[in-house]
């Protein structure tokens, strides 16, 4: 574990001086159907932002748009560099990394090989054409952080579901991404695995911008520093966990009609979780 001087806090822990991601008027149009319309997000380094919302709210589409998987209009700038319109691998090289709902590690390769590939986007052909020798310090650190040091030589395909997700997060770390977009990282995990994942996000969130798309409200309450709620492709609320839970618009979205307070949100959330599992 690294020495965490900075805990992630709402609004970021270092102000506007360093890395940030600024999304303005992001709109994704699928043949006339606006999956995401006019979304604004401002994310500073050191924020652990949760992106929640009912199914079909456009959470994953926002991540897809930021990472260049779907084309969008509006603006996404990372520390002043416009990302929209760049290709997927170029955006990745600007330090925006993501995971997917289904863990997508390279199952035939070992844990170490997975991490080594993730760390190598800037390698020259000369380096590529030679053999891997030794383990990069950054990879050793990541292995330690995600708790897979003992499994480094195992093929990633034999890892447990939770371990695969951690490996993916480790790959983002060695990729040197400072904006991490995680799509339902704890889906399908056991309670202990969720706990460990949350702590992992806390540890890495201090020095990076982490966005987590999540359905699990308990998980969100335990680890989020700030929350953005999406519904029908639009941002309907943003703030701390308590602020968002108290927001009548959010309650309405989750309950359909009558607001029933924070407990109501809980009930809706557990319903959602059941739907998803």
């Amino acid at each position: 574990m690294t020495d965490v001087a900075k805990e992630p806090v709402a609004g970021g822990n270092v102000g506007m001086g360093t890395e940030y991601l600024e999304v303005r008027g992001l709109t994704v149009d699928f043949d006339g159907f606006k999956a995401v319309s006019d979304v604004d997000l401002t994310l500073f380094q050191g924020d652990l932002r949760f992106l929640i919302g009912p199914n079909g709210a456009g959470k994953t589409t926002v991540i897809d748009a930021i990472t260049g998987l779907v084309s969008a209009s509006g603006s996404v700038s990372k520390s002043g560099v416009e990302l929209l319109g760049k290709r997927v691998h170029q955006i990745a090289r600007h330090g925006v990394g993501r995971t997917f709902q289904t863990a997508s590690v390279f199952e035939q390769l070992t844990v170490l090989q997975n991490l080594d590939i993730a760390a190598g986007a800037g390698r020259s052909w000369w380096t590529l054409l030679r053999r891997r020798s030794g383990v990069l310090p950054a990879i050793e650190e990541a292995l330690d952080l995600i708790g897979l040091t003992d499994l480094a030589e195992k093929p990633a395909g034999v890892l447990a579901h939770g371990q695969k997700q951690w490996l993916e997060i480790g790959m983002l770390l060695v990729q040197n991404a400072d904006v991490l977009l995680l799509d339902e990282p704890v889906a399908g995990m056991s309670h202990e695995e969720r706990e460990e994942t949350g702590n992992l996000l806390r540890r890495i969130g201090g020095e990076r911008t982490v966005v987590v798309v999540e359905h699990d409200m308990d998980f969100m309450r335990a680890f989020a520093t700030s929350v953005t709620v999406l519904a029908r492709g639009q941002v309907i609320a943003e703030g701390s966990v308590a602020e968002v839970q108290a927001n009548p618009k959010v309650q309405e979205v989750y309950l359909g009609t009558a607001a029933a307070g924070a407990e109501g949100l809980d009930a809706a959330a557990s319903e959602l979780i059941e739907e998803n599992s």
Partner: protein
Amino acid sequence: MKPFVGRWQTWAGFAVAAVVLFGVAPAVLSSFRLGLLGQYLCYAIVAAGIGLAWGRGGMLTLGQGVFFGLGAYMMGMHLKIADAEIRKQAVPDFMQIAGIPELPGYWTPFASPAFTLFAIVVIPTAIAAILGLGVFKRRVKGAYFAILSQALAAAMAILLVGQATLGGSNGLNGFRTFFGFALSDPVNRQMLYFIAAATLLVVVAVTRQLMQSRYGELLVAVRDGEERVRFLGYDPANIKVVAYTAAALFASIAGALFAPIIGFITPAQVGILPSIAFLIGVAIGGRTTLLGPVLGAVGVAWAQTLFSERFPSEWIYAQGLLFIVVVGFFPAGLAGLGVLLRRRRRRRDPAPEPDPEPEEQKVGASA
């Protein structure tokens, strides 16, 4: 997948191969059989490239005949010009018969041996690189890529049949000399075999380096998760095009050696059927391994000769059946079968490490 063979085992492997190819084979085989083995080694060179592109890179290259043919025809053109020069004739024999009075413009550079060797390396490489980038950048893959590459092979064969200046469907034949050495002399034919054997060893060494390098790991990653690799900051097209180009280069070199060894090159040797035939040995030997494709190509070609000498018409059915059985039931080929047996033996012994490996169980259960 942990191809971690120690350094001395590698050298020992190459030493054994060298002893077999340069010592044992010439000693025990007749001149005729040695010539056949030389042909098989050419197939093996093509197979090494297919193993890299298909086995490791997931690109089903159904059209290697194109590059094989390019190499073979370019070499053939040079040999025909050289033969004509020795006999003080302006054009090769088949052009005289066809009534072509002087060398066509595109033939003239091939009078130079240096240019010919240069072209055999550079032209197929350039074509493969341009074609590969065009195709892979547009994210054409899977069956579409396979069909496209096969269509190219068909187009190439059809194009060649129509070219009177390349001998039409007869192709180029009757080579008498190879860079000044008379091909009627068995010693020179043996030299050709040695060149093919040495080339194969070099190609295997290069393929091994490509497979075991970081590039090789990346290539497997692209094969198994092209989109994921993109999100790590790589352009998969650039990764794939290198393996595709290497395979094309190997095929071209193999073709250039094949033409003088067998003594002719025709459109029938570059079309769809030979392109698929290249694949059969690779699939049977084990496409993801280094030596599987090489040994598979030699083995299938050898078996083809043996069987078709005794049962000329049955072999083609046996070959088809073998291909279906291997692709359908042993996708990893014979090399994969070896791994399977080793794992079974290990499982029967009391396992020293109690790590559950679902992969193993799955393979065991399906067998």
